[in-house]
């Protein structure tokens, strides 16, 4: 997310820029699994860089999302207190919001709260309204940034992990899993691994301790149960468990907050899920009567510091952008603006290019027009009338467009993040075969590769009659 946003910002200038990504796709690391909230920063620690950049990022993302095709819905949030202690914390939260430039945060009477959220569980003691909060697509966002960066001339190298950095008078020589890369200037936006890269550059400012967040996504039929994001009263340790609509029309419950030692442990746990469901039952009892569509876990790049770890070392021609936690989805455009500005002050020559190409991503948000219900789209291409994934109503036309896009998916997960395919209530009961077959054919891969079938599986004899593939 952050790296793609910075690359997009750099693409505006006459620079030769390469974007390295260790994973198989843009936004496939810590960016892909979060609560997908468009934060106002009302509850940030006033005076921090994070507070400032979230505020500015909220403004920038809100402004650019429609043009970039990023689904974003300004649904607003209600922060609900459930006991006397939490009720007593509300005035302080309001003061903090004011200090963070959110003067529109206001108390909501209980009667109004239950009128606006009739399915809210009994026992709320008070609430604040945070009108500026919203929901945004966590998958389209980094893809849109990276696509615009690539359109502006940035070279994207996926599956390229940095393994070492050698500094010479000319700049940085990076050893990567895909060969050496030389650069005069280096920006470290390596997420969970930003601390390791920072140490390779000789610094020791922070250590990333991944904080796992497990999330439960409920069926679209649960969507009418709520209108706003329902936030808990935050504690010193965590922002707590929220219930929120998603831009795909589902309802999300989470996250947990567990400090881990393993930067790859994105497993959900029985205890984590049970804890979430217990909280969900209190906040929105009707939720538990609906089916669960998905369970996932993400890792936040938490550090020992209470703020982003962003430093530009001019003499070293190096910028470190670390410690960006869940607010990074909102703040990434502001981080990019800030970092590139600082790089310019440190001596990076910033000469604007004329006529940078703007891109618009295909919409995958439920609140905006989608091909399956557009007569014009289907008339232009009948494949837009051929729904392949029935739960999410993803058409053959959308799948083919994703495969042919500027940053095509390399696996089914990548296809899922670009189109919503396979992420619905049936989780592939109906369409796994059809989707895998279409993706394999359109991208020149084998079905076995697409499905991750281990090598050496012999397979069976064709037997069935009357069925056609």
């Amino acid at each position, binding site marked *: 997310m952050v790296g793609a946003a910075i690359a997009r910002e750099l693409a505006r200038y006459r620079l030769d820029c390469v974007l390295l990504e260790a994973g198989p796709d843009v936004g496939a690391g810590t960016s892909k699994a979060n609560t997908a909230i468009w934060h106002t920063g009302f509850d940030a620690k006033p005076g921090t860089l994070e507070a400032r950049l979230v505020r500015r990022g909220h403004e920038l993302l809100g402004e650019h999302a429609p043009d970039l095709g990023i689904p974003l819905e300004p649904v607003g949030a209600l922060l609900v207190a459930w006991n006397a202690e939490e009720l007593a914390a509300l005035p302080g939260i309001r003061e903090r919001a004011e200090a963070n430039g959110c003067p529109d945060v206001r108390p909501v009477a209980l009667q109004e709260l239950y009128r606006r959220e009739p399915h809210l569980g009994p026992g709320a003691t008070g609430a604040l309204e945070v009108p500026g909060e919203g929901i945004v697509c966590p998958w389209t966002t980094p893809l849109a940034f990276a696509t615009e960066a690539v359109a502006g001339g940035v070279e994207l190298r996926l599956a390229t992990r940095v393994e070492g950095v050698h500094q010479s008078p000319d700049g940085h020589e990076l050893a990567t899993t895909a060969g050496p890369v030389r650069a005069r200037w280096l920006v470290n936006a390596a997420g969970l691994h930003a601390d390791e890269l920072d140490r390779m550059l000789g610094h020791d400012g922070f250590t990333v301790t991944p904080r796992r967040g497990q999330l439960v996504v409920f069926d679209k039929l649960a969507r009418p149960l709520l209108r706003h994001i329902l936030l808990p009263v935050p504690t010193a340790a965590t922002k707590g468990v929220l219930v929120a609509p998603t831009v795909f029309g589902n309802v999300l419950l989470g996250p947990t907050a567990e400090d881990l030692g393993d930067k790859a442990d994105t497993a959900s746990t029985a205890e984590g899920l049970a804890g979430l*469901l217990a909280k969900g039952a209190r906040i929105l009892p009707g939720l538990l009567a609906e089916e669960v569509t998905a369970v996932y876990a993400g890792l936040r790049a938490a550090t020992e510091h209470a703020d982003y770890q962003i430093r530009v070392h001019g003499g070293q021609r190096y910028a470190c952008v670390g410690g960006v936690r869940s607010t990074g989805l909102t703040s990434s455009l502001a981080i990019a603006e800030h970092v590139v500005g600082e790089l310019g002050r440190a001596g990076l020559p910033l000469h604007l290019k004329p006529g940078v190409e703007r891109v618009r991503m295909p919409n995958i948000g439920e609140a905006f027009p989608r091909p399956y*219900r557009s007569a014009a789209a289907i008339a232009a291409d009948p494949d837009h*009338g051929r729904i392949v994934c029935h739960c999410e109503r993803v058409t053959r036309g959308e799948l083919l467009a994703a495969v042919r896009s500027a940053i095509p998916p390399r696996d089914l997960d990548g296809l899922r993040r670009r189109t919503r395919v396979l992420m619905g209530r049936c989780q592939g009961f109906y369409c796994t075969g059809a989707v895998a077959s279409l993706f394999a054919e359109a991208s020149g891969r084998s*079905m076995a590769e697409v499905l*991750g079938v281990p090598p050496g599986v012999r397979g069976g004899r064709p037997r*069935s009659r009357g*069925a056609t593939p």
Partner: protein
Amino acid sequence: MNVDVDVLVVGAGPAGLAAAVELRRLGVGRVLAVDREAEAGGVPRHTGHTGFGVRDLHRFVGGPRYAAAWVARAAAAGVELRTATTVTGRAASPAAGAPAPTWASAPGPLAMALTGPDGLGTVTARAVLLATGCRERPRSARLVPGTRPLGVLTTGALQQLVHLHRQPVGHRAVVVGAEHVSFSALLTLAHAGASVAAMVTEAPSHQTYAAFRAAVAVRWPRTRLLTSTRVGAIFGRQRVEAVELTDLATGATRRLACDTVVFTGDWVPDHELARLGGLTMDPGTRGPLVDQRLRTSTPGVFAAGNLLHGAETADVAALDGRHVAAAIRDHLAGIPWPARPPLPLVCRPPLRWAAPGAVAPGAGAPPMGRFVLRIGELRGHARLEVRQGDRVLATSRAGRLVPNRSISLPAGWRPRVDPDGGPLGVGIA
């Protein structure tokens, strides 16, 4: 592609096709059956084993042939069939400021929106039959924790990969569940060249016929049946590497290596259109609540097949379809919808649900002359008892009651139902 028909059938599987054929036989004019898949026929299209068609077509054939037979009958009967076309729900546009009516609650004739390669359209119909079937709960809905590697399937996905796309699946699989469909998954895995490390069920025994279990034990002696055991987690980065098994009696856990996990059974009806239409739902089956003529809570809207009872065999679904046709014809002939809601048939635990889930006094017998029930735990040779208030209407011998298996409740007690006597209850005597 706006059309005006007498009956719109949503879902061209066994129930929908059988209903459409019977409606034509009864002289109904325009019957349109719509299916979202490219081929009509429903789930039997990708079911490899034999045994289809016994009760409806009086044959004994494999799934694909069975599906093809119903498609051929529909064509011969003059049913209009439209595939690769999705009924998306609402057709009426809400008046400004008013709450949006659902497709089933909008005034005027029933109208539903379609999406297909020809574009968007609206079907206006004098009656709608929902025959949208059921699916298996996937891993996520069962809250099985762990990582999210490739190689986690449902039986439905497995059968399509193997029988429609002819794909290999993996080396070594774990099958979650031990009911009829779990054994079908085992056959499909064997056909695809995968060995089955274990079948795992939380119940104290398997839930299929003893003969099936015995045959599997002989044919695949290395496939262990692990009862009172839960798949507690799934491990693996790119691909499944192992599952964690929890012994429910002792709480002990262990790992079992595998590269494929197939979640079987645990059916949930595809009730999206029913819910979006605002139909009264049955909390037990999670399908729409229907009476014995398969009428829903909305006049002109009917339901049949595994949307009502997940999952009965295909022939039972087809017989639902044949049964509901007469009720649809009567509705088209102007016979009024019952003025009073039907009496609910409430299941006492350990019974979980009954289908149909309600009884309209004086409205005849349900499909096949019986109600279909499910139970939550094993009960040996029990008797079922139907009551209305304090009055026992009937008791019937039900044999061995096994979870996930069909239980039949004969419907001969219907004449003794008092229309003013309140809800009906069924339980174990």
